[in-house]
């Protein structure tokens, strides 16, 4: 009964989303205030119904009701409760429902935090989101009904894929979806602005915090996925250029371009068309990612569903949404105009160059992801494009982008002078060169890639410091604390995110240059060595988990005669699926991981054991977290909240806020304040 109610709730959500997608849009076009006013209540109603549907489905998993086919196929009564809750999205139907729920959640958030929007704009934004939601709920109901029943119910469920029985999997998919789906807000703003022709600084300011928030979630989601792959798949790799990883990375790359482009549109009124196009592209790539994962056009470890009708539906939906918005763009863009002009050397030009590089990188990744498909479609043959391709195209594209990333925040808007820039950057140049050299001396090994990576990381880190020092010096106040307090949150957020990139590069460079591994055969009492660590196998015992049997090894990690850690990797066989799984054990550290995976038994007493030494590997994820944290700091910036009603009176003690672009008669003028972001 409860599942039929869930199904009904989903149908009601569909009706709500249709009302939300159609009526306010018509209202906005005809100027009917009552119809425009329907945007908020329908958006909230839709959220409530999707939530009810989602909770009903969760009920089946939590109470082990295997008359629901989805629970029977993807859960089991011996599965621990928290994994039963997450098993809801460990399958195609449930994850699409989660997609819809998160979309409804973002819609709800826009309906709440939108007091500064005028009614017409809000009606259109929520209308676009309603139409997207409508498409996804239709998809769920027609091709992937999660409430399908199974009679007679099996005695027990098929269990969740053991790979997904992991804490990382508890938060990775929701985070990733928060990011993926979150770009819908920027998309809806861009489409609404294109319809009304109101592509101005105010539009950019409204879009910015939403876009940055989505970008942060996506960053965290991707990082968690990579972190999970690192310790769960047992290969010790952290990125595989798998089609599904690429599907999440593409919107990230273009989304990164978008948040920077939005900055120019807000501050300088430039790049309007470009920003609108990026907003459309970012969400389009999110949809394309969903298509790639859900339709099974590409085989991948992640694709749990391959059903041609689903593929046809998503492709049709994709064609309508992306094709429609690009057609709107083609029609509207020529009427928009170019916005503020700038010189070849200026912050705008650096940001534009970086945007283009990011977009080209995204295109290269997209090409590599879809090329096997295109080759297959043309009937030439089957092939796969692996990491060699991606590494070859990605590094040369990112190198200039990372270099410009250091200059951008220091260059002035509109026009900067090259000699002056070079003079101001001389310290950063020096630091970068010295650190590449010092790395050579300290690490005892040097390749061009290691040198380049460390030089770029040092370059970015030192320009971050330089940007901060420059801004603080330009402030007139004699009190340093006041100088610090005068900088907006978004500035610190930017610095932190850029610093995160530097930390990330250090991690990637060192781990790929210096990692070592060895596969050894060990019997209890044996000792093996990896990168100066002695690893002794103490014992192997059989253990019984809640839903698996395992052989568990106990190993001591010893360095210079001192015990560093005792680790216990497992070799598990899950009771229901009978699939063997490696549960690695890692002794983590800021400077290195000792990563131990238990292989198969090679004789009655001996086991194969794989030992990895991974220097600086955790810097990869620490860097990602810093990027996300920086993004959240930027979202918290006061100026997004302040402009809600009218400009509040500035307290006398506070120095003037950073320059704020004011739309005056359609022309955007930057008002310059002391030490402002606009410098």
């Amino acid at each position, binding site marked *: 009964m409860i599942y039929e109610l869930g199904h009904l709730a989903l149908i009601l959500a569909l009706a709500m989303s249709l009302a939300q997608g159609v009526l306010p849009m018509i209202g906005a076009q005809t100027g009917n205030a009552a119809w425009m006013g329907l945007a908020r209540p329908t958006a909230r109603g839709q959220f409530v119904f999707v939530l009810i549907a989602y909770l009903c489905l969760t009920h089946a998993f939590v109470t082990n009701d295997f008359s629901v086919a989805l629970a029977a196929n993807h859960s089991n009564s011996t599965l621990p409760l928290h994994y039963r809750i997450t098993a809801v999205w460990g399958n195609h139907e449930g994850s699409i429902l989660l997609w819809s729920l998160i979309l409804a959640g973002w819609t709800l958030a826009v309906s709440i935090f939108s007091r500064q929007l005028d009614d017409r704009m809000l009606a259109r934004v929520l209308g676009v989101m309603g139409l997207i939601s409508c498409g996804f709920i239709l998809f769920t109901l027609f091709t992937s009904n999660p409430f399908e029943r199974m009679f007679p119910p099996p005695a027990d469920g098929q269990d969740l894929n053991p790979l997904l029985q992991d804490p990382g999997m508890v938060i990775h998919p929701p985070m990733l979806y928060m990011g993926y789906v979150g770009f819908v807000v920027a998309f809806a703003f861009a489409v609404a602005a294109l319809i009304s022709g109101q592509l101005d600084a105010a539009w950019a300011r409204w879009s910015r915090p939403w876009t940055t928030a989505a970008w942060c979630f996506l960053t965290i989601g991707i990082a968690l996925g990579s972190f999970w792959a690192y310790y769960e798949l047992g290969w010790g790799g952290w990125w595989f250029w798998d089609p599904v990883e690429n599907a999440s990375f593409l919107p990230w790359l273009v989304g990164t371009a978008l948040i920077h482009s939005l900055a120019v549109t807000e501050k300088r009124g430039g790049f309007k068309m470009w920003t609108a196009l990026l907003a459309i592209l970012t969400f389009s790539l999110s949809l394309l990612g969903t298509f790639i994962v859900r339709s099974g056009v590409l085989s991948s470890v992640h694709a749990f569903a391959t059903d041609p009708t689903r593929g046809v539906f998503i492709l049709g939906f994709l064609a309508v949404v992306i094709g429609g918005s690009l057609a709107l763009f083609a029609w509207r863009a020529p009427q928009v105009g170019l916005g503020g002009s700038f010189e070849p050397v200026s912050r705008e030009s650096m940001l534009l160059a970086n945007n283009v590089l990011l977009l080209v990188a995204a295109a290269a990744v997209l090409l590599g992801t879809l090329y096997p498909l295109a080759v297959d479609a043309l009937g030439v043959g089957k092939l796969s494009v692996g990491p060699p391709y991606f590494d070859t195209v990605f590094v040369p594209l990112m190198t200039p982008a990372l270099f410009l990333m250091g200059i951008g925040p220091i260059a002035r808007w509109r026009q900067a002078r090259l000699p002056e820039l070079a003079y101001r950057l001389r310290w950063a140049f020096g630091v970068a060169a010295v650190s590449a050299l010092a790395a050579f001396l300290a690490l005892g090994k040097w390749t061009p890639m290691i040198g380049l990576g460390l030089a770029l990381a040092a370059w970015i880190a030192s320009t971050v410091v330089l940007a901060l020092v420059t801004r603080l010096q330009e402030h007139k106040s004699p009190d340093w604390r006041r100088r610090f307090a005068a900088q907006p949150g978004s500035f610190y957020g930017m610095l932190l995110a850029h610093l995160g990139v530097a930390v990330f590069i250090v991690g990637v460079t060192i781990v790929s240059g210096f990692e070592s591994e060895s596969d050894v055969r060990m019997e209890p009492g044996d000792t093996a060595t990896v990168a100066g660590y002695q690893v002794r196998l103490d014992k192997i015992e059989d253990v019984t988990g809640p839903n698996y049997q395992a052989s568990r090894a106990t190993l001591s990690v010893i360095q210079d005669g001192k015990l560093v850690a005792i680790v216990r990797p497992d070799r598990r066989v899950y009771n229901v699926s*009978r699939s063997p799984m490696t549960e690695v054990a890692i002794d983590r550290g800021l400077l290195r991981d000792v990563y131990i995976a238990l292989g198969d038994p090679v004789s009655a007493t001996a086991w194969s054991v794989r030992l990895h030494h991974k220097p600086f590997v955790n810097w990869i994820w620490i860097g990602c977290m810093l990027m996300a944290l920086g993004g959240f700091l930027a979202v918290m910036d006061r100026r997004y909240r302040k402009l809600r009603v009218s400009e509040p009176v500035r307290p006398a003690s506070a120095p003037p806020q950073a320059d704020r672009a004011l739309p005056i008669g359609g022309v955007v003028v930057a008002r310059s304040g002391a030490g402002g972001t606009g410098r």
Partner: protein
Amino acid sequence: MRKSLIPLAIFLVLVGFLAVGLGLNPREVPSPLINRPAPAFSLPLLDAPEQKLSAQDLRGQVWILNVWASWCVACRIEHPLLVEFSKMGMVPLYGLNYKDKPEDATQWLKKFGDPYTRSLSDREGLVGIDFGVYGVPETFVIDKQGVIRFKQIGPVTPEVLRDEIIPLVRKLGA
């Protein structure tokens, strides 16, 4: 042409490729067993464990081997289709009861119907390994010379039965 139309044009080309790609199957990995002789086996019958059946006994006829188990939920999806298909009496359909308890398997067949000419009991799953079984269910079409001519991974769908299996069985001259 207007520059702002370029993104739309690129997208339309992409949609074309994706549409064609949907019709293709990336998992259509040519199985190493296709066009190879079926592995030899000799297994007890499910309903008469004292009797054994071997690959040799099935020579000279076209037959289908369907790997199934009572614990397999996906098998229930294809099962009604197999029951229907067996009624056509076109070709002998042998079941390979994979890693299953005979009593569970017998019970299951009683409940859902028995489409199989005979079911073989592969309790340890060793014959399954020889056949390169990835998962249950899987279905093989084997010709008169004992050569595997077709393999379906996962449940047999009505489309696969209609468009692949039945025409193939006809061609092989069952």
